[in-house]
Structure formats: C-alpha cells, structure tokens
C-alpha cells in the first residue's frame, strides 16, 4: 500500500506559540485512522495546519499528500489535490445558496484537475441521491450554506460535501460533537460509504462512541502536540476505560 498522507517531524505554531512538536503520522490508502486525545493536545491544530488555515505556520518538518508537499499549496489547491477537512464547527455563509456553493466547489476542483465541469442537471441528481442517504431535506439545500441549520444538520451538510467532492483524504475534526445518536448513525453511514481502497480517512475524536460506527484500522493517542501511542481499534476501548491522564503525564 502507498502512503497517502505522510507527516514527518512536523512542528507548527500559531501566533508564535508552538502547538505541534515533531508530529509523525503515515496514513496509507484504504486505511481509517482515529486520532484521540485530550482537549488542548493540538488535534484541531493538526487539521488546520494540513488544510492551510491562515495563521497556522509550519516551522519544521513536512506534510505530504500523495507525495506532494502541502505547504507549497494554497488552501484551494490542497482541496483540489484531494484533501477534505470536515469542520468541527461548520461556518454559516449568509447569502450564498447551498447549491451555488456546491457547484462552485465541485467545478473549481474539477477545473484545477483539468476535468470537465459537471452539468447542473447531473449535479442536482447527484446531490439528491446523497441527500437521501444522509436523510436531508432538499429544501435545506436551497437555503444559504448552513444558515439556520442545527448542529446535526451542519454535520450532515459537511458529510454531503465530502461525498460529493470525493476527496482522497478525509479529515473529520470531532464530527461527533453536537450530534445526537440518530444523526451520529446517519453521518457515520455516509462516512462508511466513503471507505474505499483508494481513499484514506482520519477521524479526530474525543470519544469512543463515534468509533462504534466507524471502525478504525489504526488508533493514535495525541498529547502535547504529537502522537504518543499507536495501536489497533482496541486502544480506543482501553482509552474509554482509563482516560487520557497517563498520556498527559507522559507527554509532560
């Protein structure tokens, strides 16, 4: 299996404060990785650094997506190269209709990859199929992006975007936060449909419960800005029992 995401000794800071301290991670195609860890361990920072959020600066090391250096790409180029970050708190975009947004995103990515744009009827058909899987009302998609959506609806909308854009690497940043059990099942079902031998998935989460629905191949424990332990899916269960306390002391 080829390495899809390769992070080597990555150090990164926000406003001069170092958050990631020599991060190493390799995700191969077809794998699902879970990154778990206490609050403040830099889990969201990792996702923002990879996606290129302004203000998050790589000071040392490398992050490669399918061999290409992410730090050399703009945010939209990373997305077109196949990186998708499902936000913990998806933003509301007043005045921009969801369908307009989906069309703009999909076609911008296709254009950048030298592919043909998707026609409007095809796009609408595809979005309808996905909305059905995610138990979403099409009426919602006629509204501005995420405006007036509940927490669960926002996560469904993020999952729909991910399924439409078909990225190579999906990073889910605490997708379970704010989800009730029904929404958790629906969103997990969507993510599981994305599992494929050509794609990698990184699930960032606090809790085991999401991993009941999305079974990871590899589980990592992150603390103080780096990975301190790696194991199989049983590691998540162990964490549920023992908590993160010992890893916090280890990292310190």
């Amino acid at each position, binding site marked *: 299996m080829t390495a899809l995401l390769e992070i080597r000794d990555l150090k990164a800071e926000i406003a001069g404060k170092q958050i990631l301290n020599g991060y190493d991670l390799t995700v191969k195609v077809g794998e699902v990785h879970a990154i778990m860890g206490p609050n403040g361990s830099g889990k969201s920072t990792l996702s923002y650094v990879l*996606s*290129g*959020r*302004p203000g998050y600066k790589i000071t040392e090391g490398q992050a490669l997506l399918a061999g290409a250096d992410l730090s050399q790409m*703009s*945010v*939209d180029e*990373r*997305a*077109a190269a196949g990186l998708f*970050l499902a*936000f913990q708190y*998806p*933003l509301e*975009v*007043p*005045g*921009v209709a969801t369908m*307009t*947004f989906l069309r*703009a*995103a*999909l076609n*911008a*990515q296709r254009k*950048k990859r030298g592919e043909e744009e998707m026609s409007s009827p095809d796009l609408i058909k595809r979005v309808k199929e996905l909305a059905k899987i995610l138990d979403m009302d099409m009426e919602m998609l006629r509204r*501005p992006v995420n405006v007036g959506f509940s927490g669960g609806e926002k996560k469904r909308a993020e999952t729909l*975007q991910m399924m439409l*854009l078909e990225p190579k690497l999906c990073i889910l940043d605490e997708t379970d936060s704010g989800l009730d059990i029904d929404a958790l099942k629906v969103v997990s079902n969507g993510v599981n449909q994305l599992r494929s031998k050509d794609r990698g998935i990184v699930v960032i989460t606090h809790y085991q419960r999401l991993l009941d629905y999305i079974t990871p191949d590899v589980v990592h424990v992150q603390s103080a800005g780096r990975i301190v332990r790696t194991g199989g899916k049983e590691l998540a269960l162990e964490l549920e029992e023992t908590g993160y306390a010992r890893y916090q002391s280890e990292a310190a």
Partner: protein
Amino acid sequence: MGNAPITPARKLTDAEARLAEIFALQQSAGAPQLSKLRTAAFDAFSKTGLPNRRDEAWKYTDLRALLRDVKPLAAPPEESAKQSARSAALLTNVAARRVVFVGGYFAPALSDLGDLEKGLSVMSLSEALAKGDAAAMTHIGNVGEVDDPAFALNTAFMGEGVVIRVGAGVCVDRPIQLVFVAGAQPATYFLRSLVIVEKGARATLIESFEGETAQEYHVNAATEVVLEEGASLERLKISHEGAAAMHVSTFVASLAANSQLSDFGLNLGGAVLRNQSFININGPGAHAALRGANILKGKEHADATLFLDHAAERSESKALFKSVLDDSSQAVFQGKILVRPGAQKTDARMMARTLLLSEGAQANCKPELEIFADDVQCAHGSTVGALDENLIFYLMARGIPQAEAQSLLTEAFVGEVIDAVENRSVRDALSALVSERLRARQ
C-alpha cells in the same frame, strides 16, 4: 445709527458664470408658464450657486469643486449614434417597454410605444410641454418642496424626459424602461421625468443611464413621482455611466394614503455619482422602501442622500443601502428622517452597510433623525467592514479559489438588497449585472 452690513458679492466660478450665460440665452424659450418656472428656479440657484462642502447636504460631494466647467447643452445626435445605442441598453433580457433617449434626445425609432396598455400614457417631456399637458403643467416642479441647487438647475434647464400617467385602477405588468444613453460628444444633459400613478394603479419603472468610458459628460437628471391613494410603484435606477462622467440625480416623490413606493438604485460606474431622494409621505398608511447598492472601483465616488419626510400617521419607511468599495473609491450615505408633529405610529428604519475591499477605500455615513411626535419607532445604523477571513477560508477549503470566494461573498452581501426587488426578471437581470461586475475584478 449703524452702517448696513456689506456683503461682498461672491465671485462666480467659471461653471456658474457659464450656466448664467447659457440660461440668459435660452430663457425666453417655451410656454410662458414654463418660462416663469425656469426663471424662478434659476434665481433660486443663483442665490447659493453650486453647492459645496459648507452646505451640510453636500458636505461630502463638493459640486463647486468637482464641476470645473460646463459642457455644452446636448445637441441632437446623429443617426449612427442612435443605432449604436440599441445594443448598449442595460437589462436587455427584461421584457420591458423601452423608451430610449440618445444624447439627451428622444429616439422614437428605438423606442417601443405601440400598443400601450389601456389607461397608460407615455409621452416625451417636450411633447407634453408643447401640448401644454395639464398634468405636466400642474405637477412639474411641484411634487414636493425641494430646496436644492442641483434640482433647481434641473428645473431651470430641463430638456427631455417623459411624462407617464397610469390611470386609476390600472395595473401595468410590463416594466417601462427609460434608457438614457450619453452621446458621442462632451455634453451636459438635463433630463426630467414625471410619473403619475393614479388611485389604486400599479406600475414598474426602470431608469437606466449609460455612456462611453472615454467621454466626459455631465448628467443632471430628475424624476418626480406622484402616487395617489393606494397606488403602487416599483422604481429601479441603474447608473452605468462612463468612467469620466458626472451624474447627479434627484428623485422627488409624494405618497398619498396607503400608497407604496419601492425604490432601488444600483450604481455600477461613473466618476462622480450623486443620487438624492426627497420622499414626502403625505398620507396615512403609506409605505416607502428605499434600497441601493454601490459597486465602485478606481476613484469612483457615489453619494446617496435621502430625506424622508413623514407627515402622516401610520406610515412606514425602510431604507437599506449597501456599498462595495475597491481601490480608492468612496461612498457617502446621508439619510435624514423627519417625523412631523401628528405623524404618530411612524415606523422608520435606515441602515447603511459598507464592505471595504481595499485599504484605500472610504465610506462616510451620516444618519439623522428629527422627531416631533411621541409614539413612533425610528432607528438607524451603519456598519463598515471587510470580508470575513474565516468564511473565505471555509470556501477555499472546499476548493474555491480565493478571488472566486471573495466574489461569492461580495455578491451575497449585495444580494440582500437585490433580493427585495419584486419583479423577478428584473431581479435576475440585476443579479447578473452585479455578478458580472464583481467577477470582472478577478
């Protein structure tokens, strides 16, 4: 016994002297009644001269400094210019009844005045004045009390325009679009229109102004609207003037009981633009919605000055203006709400929002309230800001390039005022115009 104070006569500017000269030459033209109106207006203008920054209402648009010379009054344009105007018209996708003026002159061959709806009358201003049309003679210069030098100049020099009447109870579905295309020569255009919407009648009026980028010209336009009881008018004004053009327009409306006015102005181009509105709410239950959007670049300057005069009870006014400013462009918003004694239950709201796309752009907002009744709701506010960086990041994280993300968010910002336009085909055409203009930045 003291000496009478000696006020030295102000030295006229070159432009003022030239205006006086032109006025003296054409003063005797036209019907005596009209000549009297023109003379009174020019006398009123002469008292103050061109407005300047010391006049509160013109503080941010100093016409005395900006109007250095006066271009000759428009002469009839050549046929070739009229032909080229056909393709130039804005909003060609809208199935409107077009009344076209080229170089300040009515162009019947380009206009569509056949098969007028029953109860609708449209004639050129010159024709109405030549005929001594009773409605024109009664209302022109008389719709509201406007003490303003630019409007006075328009009355003194008014050349061409239209007189429209919508008969009582008549509903005219097809929008009437007045297309004013500047001519090929440097010129000054004094355009004047009058619209009377009689009791319970309804119509949509579009005024669009456009001109050549390379040409220097001045437009002084004025539109007076009379809304009788229960009448309704949706008015849209689009200015896409040439880059060296100056455009000053005055809108005067009088609203009778339960009438409705919806006004939307879009400024897409011109060196200096000033739209001033004087809205007289004279009847109870009347409703005025005034909206506007400026999309400016380079050194463009656009000024929206509103005066909302609530003189009747239970009336409402809503004003929302949005500006998108790039480079070193400048937008001015001045809005005054006056609630007269007895105008109880007035509900008046005014808001100006500005989006700055560059550090050199500038917004000046000055809302004013003057209230002489005690049971009213009045509010005003203004905001100035930049695009939200987090939203740009969110859109880019989905693959949308930065410039496109900025355009989408900017269109969304302007969209709020366009979405309120009632006529769907007009609304779609306006959105397309705005989108095209914003994408041209990329």
